[in-house]
């Protein structure tokens, strides 16, 4: 055999082996090797589902790739941006009259400010521009804020978004007329109560006769009977709402025989989400449940990956063979404490997060779900300081019946806020929604009890946040003073 032929065979075999190894890694292996740089914050939960963000076809133009990748940001963050009454929505910058600004910061694309895999230049909020980015558009001509606002004449641009005054997207609690309108509110309302929380906690409880009737109607098969579970269930909202044992343990059964046949001791989470859809939807938008977001591409699908490699319609046999070869693992499960990158309790190591983690399925102890459950895992400074804090004292007073419903402040009061609409109370299960930045909490939560000025000051004081609000803010954010100095009366300038 000639040397030339041996070389060809050697090169071909090497290429084949390398391709197989890379494909094996990408399709079914540990894709961490492909990460060009660490992702920011909680994106680490989905960083190996590459095709959730990288949706472009192979060899697509740079412009197409940019458009595609920006579409995927909105698939998950759409609701949040819509609710935020976005101050800089993309649609505002699409008009060609903004072309001069595209050269400065192209706000038609999320990635102009938020680049993933760039840990060296990433600051809070996954911002990959220097902190004084406002200077790009608000420092010249008609837009020069130092000219338009006398109070801003000597300010520097790195303070716009870092001092508790402005956010790029969400200014619902910070816009000028809102500051003026709420300028004079006292730091604490005379009877501080969260109205929606109060509604939820004044739900009528079943009396003895009702509980006895519920217990008599228990339809579980004999082998699954559990007096303690039944007693808890009979006092719960499920019993009152006529959701019996079969409703969760054998949801499709219609006869006692089917109930016995279908019975499962551990119903899947889908049973909960079938009825509790708003809670499930908001859970998937938050950090706890983001791996369940419906728009997230399930990683490591052999047929899709083969399509990416050029086989757009692979035969089933090939897909099956590849799947067998790579032993494709299941989708990443629910988020767990082992993967968390914030302080977690050692005892909670290995816990994963499902509905039942916080909601004991029969007990429905909402007091536990509202505070105790959080503290079984979270041990960061703010969480660790909750017990013994003024808010916790209020919570204890309410739970012991010594204070009005809705006057207690649990973890959930602030992080899983309730809203009332047409008499129905819904709990948002997106526990990140009132954060990032924390001024988002002011309107749906803080202002139920506190004045706007106090809330702004308190949330701008990191030490006070860390010690769970034991004390008073160490700073005075001047935005309200500046806003009121521009008007003679509170309603002036509100365009009314």
């Amino acid at each position, binding site marked *: 055999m000639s040397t030339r032929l041996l070389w060809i065979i050697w090169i071909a075999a090497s290429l084949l082996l390398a391709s197989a190894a890379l494909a094996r890694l990408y399709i079914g292996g540990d894709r961490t090797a492909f990460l060009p740089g660490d992702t920011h914050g909680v994106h680490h939960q989905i960083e190996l589902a590459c095709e959730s963000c990288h949706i472009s076809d192979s060899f697509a133009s740079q412009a197409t790739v940019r458009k595609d990748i920006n579409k995927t940001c909105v698939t998950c963050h759409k609701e949040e941006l819509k609710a935020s*009454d976005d101050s800089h929505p993309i649609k505002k910058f699409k008009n060609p009259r903004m072309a001069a600004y595209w050269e400065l910061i192209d706000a038609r694309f999320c990635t102009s400010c938020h680049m993933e895999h760039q840990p060296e230049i990433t600051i809070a909020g996954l911002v990959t521009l220097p902190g004084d980015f406002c200077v790009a558009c608000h420092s010249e001509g008609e837009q020069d804020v130092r000219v338009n606002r006398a109070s801003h004449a000597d300010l520097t641009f790195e303070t716009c978004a870092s001092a508790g005054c402005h956010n790029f997207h969400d200014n619902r609690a910070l816009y000028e007329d809102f500051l003026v309108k709420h300028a004079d509110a006292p730091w604490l309302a005379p009877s501080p109560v969260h109205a929606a929380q109060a509604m939820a906690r004044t739900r009528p409880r079943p009396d003895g006769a009702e509980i006895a009737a519920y217990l008599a109607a228990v339809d579980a098969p004999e082998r699954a009977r559990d007096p303690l579970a039944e007693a808890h269930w009979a006092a719960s909202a499920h019993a009152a709402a006529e959701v019996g044992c079969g409703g969760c343990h054998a949801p499709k059964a219609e006869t006692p025989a089917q109930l016995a046949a279908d019975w499962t001791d551990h119903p899947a989470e889908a049973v909960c989400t079938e009825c509790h859809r708003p809670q499930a939807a908001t859970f998937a938008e938050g950090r706890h449940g983001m791996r369940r977001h419906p728009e997230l591409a399930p990683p490591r699908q052999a047929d899709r990956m083969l399509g990416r490699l050029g086989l757009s319609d692979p035969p089933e046999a090939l897909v099956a063979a590849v799947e067998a070869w790579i032993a494709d693992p299941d989708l990443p499960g629910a988020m767990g404490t082992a993967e968390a990158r914030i302080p977690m309790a050692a005892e909670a190591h290995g816990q994963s997060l499902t509905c039942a983690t916080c909601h004991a399925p029969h007990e429905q102890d909402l007091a536990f779900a509202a505070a105790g459950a959080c503290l079984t895992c979270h041990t960061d400074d703010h969480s660790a300081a909750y017990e013994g804090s003024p808010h916790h004292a209020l919570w204890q007073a309410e739970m012991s019946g010594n204070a009005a419903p809705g006057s207690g402040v649990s973890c959930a009061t602030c992080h899983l806020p309730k809203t009332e609409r047409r008499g129905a109370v819904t709990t948002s299960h997106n526990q990140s929604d009132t954060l990032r930045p924390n001024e988002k909490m002011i309107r749906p939560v803080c202002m139920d009890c506190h004045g706007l000025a106090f809330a702004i000051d308190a949330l701008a004081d990191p030490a006070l946040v860390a010690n769970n609000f034991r004390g008073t803010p160490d700073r005075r954010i001047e935005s309200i003073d500046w806003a009121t100095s521009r008007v003679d009366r509170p309603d002036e300038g509100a*365009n009314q």
Partner: protein
Amino acid sequence: MKAKATKIKAAILCGMLGTAAVPAVSDGMDYSTVTDLLHLVMSSDRTVYTRMIVNRLAVEEGVIKASEHYMDEKALVLPAQMFRYGAEMVAEETDEFSYSLLSLWPINKQNAPTTDMEREGLEYIAANPGENFYGEEDLGGTTYFTAVYPDVAVAEACWACHNDHKDTPRSDFKAGDVMGGVVIRIPMD
């Protein structure tokens, strides 16, 4: 047949509007005809909203307020906001044309002219009441046909709010004044 009918209708409307023909698009309407027609729809809707909703309910009847912060105040959307939201909705759907409501005396500084042609057009329509302005400009690597139409104070709600607002650069608007302009752009490339 349909295209021909459209062209005929466009020609009739064009005649009604008294528009001078601008270089023709091959087998279609002139750019200026298209912008004239778009503006006719925009200005009609805008006038209806301003007169029949905002002015009637907020100024004459006083049954509801109109407010920039219409969500918080449970109020009517301001006419300028109604127009802008429509423009933004269009921007989300197409790049085939874009429009905006601008002024040399904007309350919201975002609505000041950002291009030389916008400024030239706004100055032209303010100095020549009743006339429109047409031109071409290069923006972001694309050539646009740009038309600027006068936006006239049609109801008390317009000048009352603009004259009184704390951020207004001009406080002497009256009925019939050109308060700003509608700028419509069509990419020519």
